[in-house]
């Protein structure tokens, strides 16, 4: 079992993602939702951080929030998985505890 970290801030607005990536343990899962979904877009100044995290962590993005911001699945960083709210619930169900980086 591992921890689930939720990040709801754009990496271009606040340092929540940086803090999360720095403090989360290998094997953790990270869910990007609300404005946090911008971190899941390929080819941005923040993309390398997420790609790097994928080496030892799982990264998920909440599909309704991703789509609500006009983003399409083909812009997703390779290895990041899309989940819907039911998938969000499953991630919480499967983890040890949830850390919200609000």
């Amino acid at each position: 079992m591992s921890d689930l970290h939720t990040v709801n801030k754009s990496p271009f607005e606040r340092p929540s993602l940086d803090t999360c990536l720095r403090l989360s343990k290998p094997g953790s899962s990270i869910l990007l939702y609300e404005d946090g979904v911008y971190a899941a877009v390929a080819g941005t100044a923040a993309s390398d951080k997420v790609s790097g995290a994928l080496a030892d962590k799982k990264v998920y993005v909440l599909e309704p929030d991703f789509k609500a911001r006009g983003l399409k699945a083909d812009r997703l960083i390779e290895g990041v998985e899309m989940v819907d709210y039911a998938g969000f619930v499953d991630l919480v169900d499967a983890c040890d505890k949830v850390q919200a980086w609000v």
Partner: protein
Amino acid sequence: MKFAIQVNEGPYQHQASDSAYHFTKAALEKGHECFRVFFYHDGVLNSTRLTTPPQDDRNVVNNWMELAEKYDLDLVVCVAAAQRRGIVDEGEAQRNGKDATNLAPRFRISGLGQLVEAAIQCDKLVVFGD
């Protein structure tokens, strides 16, 4: 699995309340239990029955009320945060000499101990906020 939900933001400043609502709804639809939803800080603004959003806009207060009705949810509003923001029920109106109440049906005002209890009783506490 038994969830508890904490909502720290009102309906119009941030997406947190919508996210919390959709998460709670999805969890209940999957058959999970929600021990309590605790509204804290500006989150208490989700509990006023006096909001009248445009008809083509989502009504966050009604959404929570309907979900509570369907699943018998315990929607708890933090008393200290509510007093600061003018969220009032009968008891608070009497205690503080107010001439009106605005707490929506299905919500109740109580103390921070309810959040602590929810955190102890639930399997997972999920926090939504800014």
